[in-house]
């Protein structure tokens, strides 16, 4: 397996004479943030005891009928707007028929021919610039229950808590070309939905999963190759691994002169390989037809306009504003807007403090801590208010950047006010020129040999003197002043 990364950072696979590019399309299943299910009033709370959030509708009791949850419709439209997509005023719920133990109705209610959302676009911020990925459609559908095979040796257990939970299936065009783009695409989708509050994007809890369609073709050709669909991959890392494996497998087949069978495959995370699940011939015939229990879904212009008015500033616009208003670099802006909570935190900090310092402290120290402790920014041990105070202490010269790092560590214990820490520990920066002069005089007096060498031209030694002064001041000496005074004294 040999990957070629040329200067454009293209993801290509090369063999003997041929170079292949990889074509990827994703079908992302995003759980709609909603307290109740798509067609029933059962709770959607994650982690409840099995079969405790199941209504008669969810369990498909005789005579039970689905009633559409208006909030979920709103959420789907909101997401559509966030994807800059066509909102279809009329959409139709269809039945997708198949038998499975965790599918109580014997069909899934989905949207087949007439989805609620049509074509849209997502912009990816790649290291070498922006890339647009087309959205084919977004439709609403209900989730199935869960089959549990490893609890009882004889039987499969079924948990219907998920049964009927609203999902948005977001289908991309085959515009993705690398595992890196997939990574950025998923993160961007998640970011947009979190901004909108339409999906929490929690992959551990299964709120975001994807079917990954992969095909390969010789670089420079236009015709799409035969694709394979890798079902139900639930982490970005696994998606990337699966794509890597699958693309190479397909290239190998072509190189061997074999053809690729259109099929559905599974990704085995333990063996890091994809395996055939069913061929095209064995594909289910889902016998889609409009669900006669539900009338076509019709939304008015007013309804859509009302939702539009509730759309917050989205990552792309926010990024643009951050760059223009706060003079951030595109890179910094991308990081700060990627998560809505981060952007809120940032804007809270800079209300009363220096933008440049705030950017550095948030993307540097704070992110490191959050990463280490595996925390979301909303649960940050240091509040925006106190970080802003810390930055002001640096800016007005009360403390040095170095001392600030010490204080930052101390602040984490109960979100302490940095001023209190400075006062308690006597960490205030020594900026009194007279006092500093005394310190410097002492250092000069104590190191006559070094002074001589310095004056004879060994200017590197300047750093030594700064270090000595800082040392005797206990780190509190104002480094800028120390520099200035030292330079004068050593002339």
């Amino acid at each position, binding site marked *: 397996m040999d990957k070629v990364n040329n200067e454009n950072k293209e993801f290509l696979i090369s063999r003997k004479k041929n170079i292949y590019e990889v074509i990827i399309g994703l079908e992302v299943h995003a759980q709609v943030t909603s307290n109740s299910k798509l067609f029933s009033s059962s709770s959607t709370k994650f982690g409840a005891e099995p079969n405790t959030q199941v209504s008669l509708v969810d369990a498909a009791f*005789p005579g039970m009928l689905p009633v559409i949850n208006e909030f979920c419709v709103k959420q789907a439209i909101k997401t559509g707007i966030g994807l800059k997509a066509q909102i279809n005023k009329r959409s139709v719920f269809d039945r997708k028929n198949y038998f499975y133990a965790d599918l109580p109705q014997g069909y899934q209610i989905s949207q087949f021919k007439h989805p609620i959302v049509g074509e849209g676009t997502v912009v990816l911020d790649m290291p070498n610039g922006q890339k647009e990925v087309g959205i084919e459609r977004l439709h609403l559908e209900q989730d199935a229950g869960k089959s549990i095979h490893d609890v009882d040796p004889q039987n499969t257990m079924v948990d219907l808590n998920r049964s009927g939970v609203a999902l948005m299936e977001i289908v991309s065009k085959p515009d993705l070309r690398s595992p890196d783009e997939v990574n950025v695409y998923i993160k961007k989708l998640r970011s947009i939905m979190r901004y909108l509050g339409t999906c929490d994007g929690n992959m551990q809890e299964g709120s975001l999963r994807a079917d990954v369609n992969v095909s390969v073709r010789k670089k420079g050709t236009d015709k799409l190759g035969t694709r394979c669909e890798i079902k139900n991959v639930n982490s970005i890392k696994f998606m990337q691994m699966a794509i890597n494996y699958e693309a190479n497998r397909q290239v190998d087949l072509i190189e061997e002169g074999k053809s690729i069978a259109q099929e559905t495959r599974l990704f085995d995370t333990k063996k890091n390989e994809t395996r055939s699940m069913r061929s095209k011939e064995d594909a289910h015939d889902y016998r889609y037809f409009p669900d006669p229990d539900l009338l076509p879904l019709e939304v008015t212009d007013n309804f859509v306009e009302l939702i539009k008015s509730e759309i917050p500033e989205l990552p792309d616009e926010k990024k643009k504003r951050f760059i223009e208003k706060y003079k951030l670099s595109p890179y910094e802006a991308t990081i700060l807007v990627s998560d809505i909570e981060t952007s809120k935190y940032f804007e809270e900090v800079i209300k009363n403090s220096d933008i440049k310092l705030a950017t550095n402290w948030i993307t540097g120290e704070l992110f490191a801590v959050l990463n280490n402790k595996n925390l979301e920014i909303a649960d940050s041990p240091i509040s925006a208010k106190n970080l802003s105070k810390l930055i002001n202490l640096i800016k007005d010269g009360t403390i040095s950047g170095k001392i600030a790092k010490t204080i930052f560590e101390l602040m984490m214990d109960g979100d302490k006010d940095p001023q209190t820490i400075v006062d308690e520990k006597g960490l205030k920066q020594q900026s009194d020129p007279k006092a500093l002069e005394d310190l410097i005089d002492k250092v000069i007096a104590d190191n006559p040999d070094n002074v001589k060498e310095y004056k004879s031209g060994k200017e590197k030694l300047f750093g030594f003197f700064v270090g000595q002064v800082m040392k005797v001041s206990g780190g509190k000496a104002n480094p800028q002043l120390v520099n200035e005074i030292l330079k004068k004294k050593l002339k």
Partner: protein
Amino acid sequence: MNDIVSQKLTELVQNVKERKISSEEITKAFIDRSNKSKTLNSYITENFSAALQKAKKFDEKPNLDLKLPGIPIAVKDLFCTNGVRTTAGSKILNNFTPTYESTVTQNMWNDGAILLGKLNCDEFAMGSSNETSFFGNVQNPIDKDLVPGGSSGGSASALAANITPITIGTDTGGSIRQPASFTGTVGLKPTYGSCSRYGIVAFASSLDQAGPMSKNVKDCALLQEVISTYDSKDSTSIDFKRNNYSSELTKNIKGKKIGIPKEYRVDGMPKEIETLWSKGTQYLKNCGAEIVDISLPHTNYALPAYYIVAPAEASSNLARYDGVKYGFRSNGENLIDMYEKTRSEGFGDEVQRRIMIGTYVLSSGYYDAYYLKAQKVRKLIKNDFDEVYKKVDAILTPSTPSSAFKIGENSNDPVSMYLNDIFTVPVNLAGLPAISIPAGVDDKGNPLGLQIIGKHFDEQNILNIAYAMEEKINFKNKITDWWIK
């Protein structure tokens, strides 16, 4: 005062309101009669002791403002009844007891009625003779060898035999009107969306509609008034202004324009039905109505379209009976084996036939040719009706192409069985209301019905027409109580 069980619903209500009879007396009388009539096999599940208790309770503190005060009523076993077994006439639901109540039956209990029992029907309402029921066929009180019609055969039989003062059925392609016609009773299929489908075991969702079956038009109007409500639990329920059908009932139909569709004059239709139809037309004229010849050109295609659409929906609606969650399960080697055994042992032949037809017409490669085409035909049939309703207020047709046939006569010939629905299915496809009223007898003395088809939401109008005709026809059902020794 008449013998209790032969009283009409409105008489019973009147007598209860005037404190002439108690709910307990009525309930006892119908239970007695039911017990003597077991041979008809009208019931699947009896609810007699609970009914009697409820009747006593009602009498302790009778609320006489209710529309069905303390009236015991047996219902088709397709309505889910809380705490009372509901089978849909199928082995697969043989052991199923719902924990919930259908909206239609709830409306009846809310208005004072008491559940007497669950009545036999074709399995999942798929049949025209009540012979597909897992619980055995039902006899027609008219003659022991005759079917009562179907699928609401138990309901029709029980009603005609005075086992219940009134009843409800469901009508997907004629399942209320055809048995009403076969038993000399009245049956109304309301506008689609008039009665909630919540809690009714589904056959074909876009066609199913519950409705009253009664001994006369007035009773029918009263029960329709009770059961028809807008229900947010059924997305296809329609919030339209419902009349007080019984109090607004009038025989004055002067000036009403009634259409006679030429396409309903089918080949091989018995002479008596022709005659009956002409007589009915004459009665209408006598009432001051105007008769208009009309054409519903796509009528011929209704039956084939129906037998695509209904099985298609049924094949999907019945997928939930898989042995996993409730109902009958036959153990298997694995999941697929369990499904196959459960469904082949749990469903009868006719249900399996329709599941297969439905699965076939929805399959990829056949969908366009069958299901989609049938939907287009359905649209054309609707258009036919819309077109004629610009000229007429209602339509008069025979209810069925024959009187009740013999038990076993059609049971091995699905196609001739399906032909029974020829006059009733167009109404379901178009979602219209229609009522069948007894209008005469054939040469063997067996009842025949006429059907009045109305505009959407125009139940009041067809009830009025039926009411006016009923008086002129003055039909008397000849039931000899042969089954009571």
